[in-house]
């Protein structure tokens, strides 16, 4: 276990160093534009998996948290012009609060009722933002990027690196939860909530914790998006595609292990980037839907499950 931990942090450090190196070496802007989106989806999928994967509560509110993150950043930037780091921290705080409130309201519901309630919350928040003139209302708001900080010579490169840091943060948190008593408790209540409650697992408290952490990460992932696009409008910030993407990436990767959502997000994210460039964004959503249905039907444990199956077969063959 301990050696595993060392390997993990070495890997994380290498990943960040690589990202940093990329910003210093590559001059072309396009890789950063594309990779930023993939990194953003990794954070969203990992965050989704904390509640959806470990606890088995299918959250369709990813877009709600993402959108609130975007608009927290927009509001702060317009009102005070605080730097990006503060915007992200504030978004995380708002996301945690929102996760807490939403969790209190909805986590007593089970199965489809919880899922529907999270969609409901998304639409309600989107409507409220649409009617809020200060942040642009339905027509959206243009944003001017401030000057970039050293050592980056371009704002997108900086956003890329910031998102990479968030990936490491999200994965580290998810990994910690999986290996700690929180993860075991969530696993127990996923299998049988009543039995878990009876044996003394504080189910509601655990679910709330998961919802708060997941919400904070999703909001934080959304905060830099406003600066990335230099524009924000409710219809795209709260687009249901974020919810389905996060869900699909987690389920396709496999939710039993923290690496599942990462694998799923990279796989789908890269495919999407290639499809968007070569064909069209509609086909891109179609592929997402088809892959989700295929995996849910044919490989319910996701890619992680497939890998485990192959491994155990090989072990049987040797033994």
């Amino acid at each position, binding site marked *: 276990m301990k050696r595993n931990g060392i390997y993990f942090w070495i890997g994380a450090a290498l990943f960040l160093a690589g990202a940093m190196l990329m910003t210093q070496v590559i001059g072309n802007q396009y890789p950063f534009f594309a990779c930023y989106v993939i990194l953003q989806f990794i954070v969203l999928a990992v965050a989704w998996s904390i509640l*959806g994967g470990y606890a*088995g509560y*299918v959250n*369709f509110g990813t877009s709600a948290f993402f959108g609130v993150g975007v608009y927290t950043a927009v509001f702060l930037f317009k009102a005070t012009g605080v730097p990006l780091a503060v915007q992200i921290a504030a978004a995380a705080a708002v996301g945690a609060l929102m996760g807490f409130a939403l969790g209190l*309201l*909805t986590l007593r*519901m*089970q*199965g*489809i*009722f919880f*899922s*529907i*309630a999270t*969609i*409901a*919350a998304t*639409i*309600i928040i*989107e*409507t*409220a933002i*649409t*009617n809020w003139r200060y942040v642009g209302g*339905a027509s959206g708001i243009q944003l001017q990027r401030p000057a970039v900080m050293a050592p980056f010579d371009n704002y997108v490169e900086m956003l890329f690196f910031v998102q990479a840091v968030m990936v490491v943060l999200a994965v580290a948190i998810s990994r910690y939860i999986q290996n700690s008593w929180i993860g075991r408790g969530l696993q127990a209540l996923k299998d049988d909530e009543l039995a878990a409650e009876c044996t003394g697992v504080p189910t509601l408290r655990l679910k709330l914790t998961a919802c708060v952490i997941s919400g904070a990460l999703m909001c934080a992932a959304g905060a830099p998006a406003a600066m990335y696009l230099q524009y924000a409008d409710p219809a795209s910030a709260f687009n*249901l595609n974020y919810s*389905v993407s996060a*869900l*699909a990436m987690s*389920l396709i990767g496999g939710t039993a292990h923290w690496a599942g959502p990462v694998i799923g997000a990279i796989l789908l994210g890269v495919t999407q980037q290639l499809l968007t460039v070569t064909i069209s964004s*509609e*086909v891109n*959503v*179609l592929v*997402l*839907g*088809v892959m*989700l*249905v295929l995996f*849910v*039907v044919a490989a*319910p444990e996701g890619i992680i499950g497939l890998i485990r199956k192959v491994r155990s077969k090989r072990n049987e063959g040797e033994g």
Partner: protein
Amino acid sequence: MFSFELLLDAVVIGVLLGCFYAAVSLGLSISFGLLDVPHVAHPAFLVLASYAVYFLNEHYGVDPLLAGLLITPLFFLFGLVAYRLYYETFEKRGSDAGVRGIAFFFGIAFIIEVLIILLFGVDQRSVTADYVGKAWRLGDMRIPFRLVVAFVVAAALTILLTLYLSRTFMGRAIRAVAQDQEALRLMGANPIRIKQWAFGIATAVLGIAGALLIIVAPVEPTLDRTYIGRTFCVVVMAGLGSMSGTLVAAIILGVAEAIVLTLFGASWAPAISFAMLLGVLAVRPQGLFGRRS
């Protein structure tokens, strides 16, 4: 400013609109309410039906209501296949069907949405018929004729389905399977075939509901997202599986929407059904006429 006439206007329109909402929710009331299938793709099926009606109307000049009737058998078969697929992949395997079942239907909904976009484009589509666009004048009140058509058809549909579920053998079997599947199995009946039949009926109703949807207002591929709120709000508020309850709940939603629309404007409209849904789930999850208390 706000006056009594305006309120009366809103209530009348709301009742008509409510009956229409009942028509589009009846299928979900069977599939989700009675059969416990997490059918999030129901609104997507509905929009698909609307586009089928649009296609028949645009290219062959078929009357929208007739077109709705024509596609009903197709949708019945579609429903049979869809349930079979769902049963074989999820219900049969049992464990953890909830999470994946929802994801499955959401995936299906997305696929339908994109297919519609690829086939028909993202523009709004509407149908032409004699009764679309005209209005009745009742004193100072102006009632769009399309809403009246929707009202009449929806009321007939609700009565027919209620009768079907309470009077016919198959209808009673459907209600029985909702109450106790094991008991039915012990009586020597096959619950799966009854459920499949019920899901077929639930999907078939969407043919006509889809026709009403495109008669009442133009449709666009992503319209199903709004109707997730409306249909689930109606079904949950009604109490799962109650047909008459569906009508009452739909009228409550229709009136609430019409009043908020007159008071605050159209930009708040999408949130109403979702807010009511959230409220019902939080305060009275068994609904107004719930079968489970």
